């Protein structure tokens, strides 16, 4: 939590042609380009898998893939496209253009931005390597339903690695959400209120808000699943009242429905920009479009059970969620009409991006209408799990991604300074559109066929064959994008600053924009963009028309290797963890003899990764780094909240959702089992209140000690500060020791009911207890690491006496950990 990014180093960025530049850059535009290239790689990866599926479906029955391989391919295709392609693809543009649109120099936390990218990069690498680890990759579909997702049915090291790869990506999105939210709420230039955001930035704002909540729920779900795999808890194999399956369904779809909009919203934002620019009009009903987007973002969290109409939910629940589902379709109608009416009285230039914009509307209308079918329960009863769903969501999500492809054609001239061949662009568009509809439209007619199978009746063979042809045409169009861009980089004409005569702020600077974006301090106060105290050193709007491949001359200390190193070591650690499970299972089965023989290699790898992560975090903490200064001009609704503090609170909010999901999972599982029977049947006598009470005392006191540290700073007492922090550390140590003793005892009890002890996998009550309090314990440990850093800095560097913010923000975190315990204590020790 040390955002001490304020030292003023003067340093040159390495040249764009050097590898070092790309490993160490934290500039939002560089990071955007990294996202773009990496996500296109995954588009090709996921696309090749899709073509494998299409080839397999040329004939009914297993032809080129076995059942197991086919499942891996469909699962990986879905996971890659959703997680490693669409969102990062959208965030390539968000990274590049949000700061430019709002008049900021960079994101609020540039190093964290680089960290987001590298976590994504290595998450993808771990996912990709899962195919080559023992047993192949995850094969339970991108929805990862339980209990198929549990080690009993999916024991392969590769499947765990794939899950951990996705988890790295989810951590990356959490970091991104915190960063973008802080940026959008506190870095807008003077005069730009939140309602003045250009539609793309507005869509990103809502996207990251949804991401913060939705991905926190997914993170919790993935942690539970990974813990079933790695430490042997039994969440998803618990079958009492179907609770394991239902737990996954709820957590997953609570994430899953917002996820649809998380991938869709950036596309709608791009659509808005493209429609504005190429009609020459402002958005029709701009206010209503923005409100409709906002409504959908909120509503997206109360519709998730429409994915569960076939699971036997009770009548009232189905009715309720059918109603919320209809309700969420309505703002979309409004939005779509707003986009369509923007064309009225326009002068529409049918450029490649505009063609993509119109196509997106068409595809989205088809996707939306076919989605209403699924919201009507009696129809859902015969459509869910089949090709209607497949066709529908490809129209919605990939149809949305069409706007993002349009975004390449729209923004490429700005990002590269080069204009592509416009005829090539239109040919590419035609190929894409024809391929797309040939691929997905016939699938509606195959609605009686289950998805994820390769056996079908001859009557629908024709549809599959057309789709396969369409698939290859679509694949060709993707290659054409790459070809057109490479061609343009080499032979393209200079694009100029504003080739489309657009009027959002990114078009006011040179193409590509200078390192620090604007040649002065942007302000919108006059009702349009103007520069306060413009710089005169020539890095402004008229410079750099020659393409900018030369060494950049701007100077700030913007480079850091630590995001790369942290991510790399997490990759190594997770890689190790994915294979370590037999190891731990043997341990808690009380049979340490096998421990040494099973997975020492994986354990060692995990250990190396862990040490590496620790070291790189330390480096991260001590490294000098200059982040853009907070603007503090308009921060609605967070006026008066300092920027780093805002970041901490937003992070804590996501942590609230993660912990809320853990606690909710415990309550749900207990409720399904029988609230009181749970205590009688599953929990040993030896599990008493006292250790929990002692730990409550210790933690409360430690919280008090942090408060005293701040009091000491106010009294200008360095000794008091260090003493209080050391006391906090000591109390936390006591907490962990006490917990360790308690766990040791519970592991090794031997009673009639629990002859083998009460271990992690003994039953669902022990699983929830160890996992939930264990995750809390991890938070304590993380806090202690930060404490060591703070104590060191306070003692040796006389830090914090002038500026107590790091201590205060650590306190926010520590008190949060305390509050969580205040609820864990009664839940797990009293009730």
């Amino acid at each position, binding site marked *: 939590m040390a955002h001490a990014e304020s030292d003023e180093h003067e340093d040159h960025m390495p040249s764009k042609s050097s590898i070092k530049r790309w490993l160490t850059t934290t500039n939002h535009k560089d990071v955007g380009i990294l996202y773009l290239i990496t996500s296109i790689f995954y588009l090709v990866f996921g696309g090749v898998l899709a073509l494998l599926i299409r080839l397999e479906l040329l004939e009914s029955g297993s032809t080129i893939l076995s059942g197991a391989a086919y499942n891996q391919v469909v699962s990986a295709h879905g996971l890659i496209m959703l997680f490693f392609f669409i969102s990062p693809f959208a965030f390539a543009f968000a990274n590049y253009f949000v700061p430019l649109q709002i008049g900021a120099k960079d994101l609020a936390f540039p190093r964290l931005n680089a960290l987001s990218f590298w976590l994504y990069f290595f998450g993808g690498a771990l996912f990709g390597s899962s195919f080559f680890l023992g047993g192949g990759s995850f094969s339970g579909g991108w929805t990862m339903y339980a209990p198929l997702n549990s080690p009993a049915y999916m024991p392969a090291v590769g499947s765990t690695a794939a899950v951990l790869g996705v988890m790295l990506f989810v951590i990356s999105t959490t970091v991104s959400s915190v960063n973008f939210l802080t940026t959008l709420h506190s870095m807008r230039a003077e005069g730009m209120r939140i309602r003045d955001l250009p539609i793309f930035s507005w869509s990103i704002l809502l996207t990251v808000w949804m991401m913060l909540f939705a991905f926190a729920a997914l993170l919790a779900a993935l942690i539970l699943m990974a813990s079933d795999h790695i430490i042997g808890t039994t969440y998803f194999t618990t079958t009492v009242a179907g609770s394991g399956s239902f737990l996954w369904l709820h*957590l997953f779809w609570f994430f899953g429905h917002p996820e649809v909009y998380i991938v869709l919203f950036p596309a709608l934002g791009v659509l808005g920009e493209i429609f504005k620019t190429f009609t020459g009009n402002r958005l029709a009903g701009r206010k209503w479009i923005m409100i409709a987007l906002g409504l959908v973002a909120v509503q997206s969290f109360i519709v998730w*059970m429409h994915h569960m109409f076939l699971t036997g939910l*009770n009548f009232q*629940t189905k009715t309720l969620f059918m109603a919320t589902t209809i309700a969420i379709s309505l703002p979309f109608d409004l939005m779509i009409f707003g986009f369509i009416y923007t064309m009225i009285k326009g002068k529409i230039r049918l450029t490649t991006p505009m063609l993509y914009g119109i196509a997106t509307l068409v595809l989205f209308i088809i996707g939306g209408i076919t989605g209403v079918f699924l919201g009507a329960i009696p129809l859902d009863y015969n459509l869910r799990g089949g090709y209607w769903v497949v066709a529908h969501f490809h129209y919605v999500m990939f149809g949305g991604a069409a706007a993002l492809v349009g975004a390449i054609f729209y923004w490429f001239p700005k990002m590269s300074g080069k204009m592509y061949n416009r005829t090539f662009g239109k040919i590419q568009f035609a190929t894409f559109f024809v391929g797309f509809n040939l691929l997905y439209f016939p699938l509606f007619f195959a609605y009686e066929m289950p998805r994820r199978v390769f056996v079908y009746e001859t009557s629908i063979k024709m549809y599959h064959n057309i789709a396969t042809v369409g698939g290859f045409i679509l694949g060709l169009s993707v290659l054409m994008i790459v070809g057109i861009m490479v061609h343009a980089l080499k032979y393209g004409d200079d694009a100029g600053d504003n080739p489309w005569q657009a009027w959002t702020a990114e078009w006011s600077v040179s193409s590509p924009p200078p390192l620090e974006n604007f040649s002065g301090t942007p302000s919108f106060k006059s009702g349009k963009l103007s520069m306060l105290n413009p710089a005169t050193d020539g890095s402004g709007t008229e410079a750099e028309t020659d393409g900018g491949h030369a060494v950049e001359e701007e100077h700030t200390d913007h480079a850091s290797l630590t995001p790369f190193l942290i991510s790399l070591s997490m990759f190594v650690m997770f890689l190790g963890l994915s294979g370590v499970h037999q190891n731990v299972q043997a341990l808690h089965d009380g049979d340490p003899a096998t421990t040494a023989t099973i997975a020492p290699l994986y354990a060692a790898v995990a250990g190396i990764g862990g040490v590496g992560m620790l070291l790189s975090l330390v480096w991260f903490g001590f490294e000098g780094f200059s982040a853009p200064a907070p603007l503090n001009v308009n921060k609605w609704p967070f006026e008066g909240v300092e920027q780093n503090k805002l970041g901490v609170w937003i992070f804590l909010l996501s942590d609230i959702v993660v912990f809320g999901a853990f606690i909710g999972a415990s309550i749900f599982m207990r409720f399904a089992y029988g609230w009181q029977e749970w205590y009688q049947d599953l929990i040993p006598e030896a599990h008493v209140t006292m250790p929990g009470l002692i730990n409550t005392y210790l933690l409360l006191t430690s919280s*008090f000690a942090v*408060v005293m540290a701040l009091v000491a700073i*106010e009294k200008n007492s360095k000794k008091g500060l260090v003493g209080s922090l050391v006391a906090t550390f000591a109390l936390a140590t006591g907490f962990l020791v006490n917990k360790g003793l308690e766990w040791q005892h519970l592991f090794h009890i031997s009673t009639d009911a629990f002859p083998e002890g009460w271990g992690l996998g003994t039953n669902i009550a022990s699983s929830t207890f160890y996992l939930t309090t264990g995750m809390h314990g991890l938070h304590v440990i993380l806090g202690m690491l930060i404490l060591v850093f703070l104590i060191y800095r306070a003692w040796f560097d006389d830090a914090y006496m002038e500026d107590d913010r790091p201590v*205060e923000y650590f*306190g926010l975190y520590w008190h949060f950990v305390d*509050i969580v315990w205040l609820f864990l204590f009664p839940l797990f020790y009293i009730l």
Partner: protein
Amino acid sequence: MSDSNWKLYTAIFGVLFVFATIQAAVEMMGFLDSAYWLAVGAIAVLSVIKAYFVAAYYQHLKFEPRSVTYLVLGGLVAVMFLTAAASFSIT
């Protein structure tokens, strides 16, 4: 953290300490056996009050713009709705 009143913080610390003890006492004195749901309610209320004190004073939410509080409450409402709706759906 403007002119902090360490006496207030100490008093709050005392309250937290006592409430935790009461919660444990409810269990040890067997109230959970005699009037289970009443005791559960009491324990839950005590936890909420404790959390309020820590958040409002130690995390000084009380002195921040209200929007930060709404932020936190937003997260809480989301997970509570998830838990409640999920539990209800399987009844």
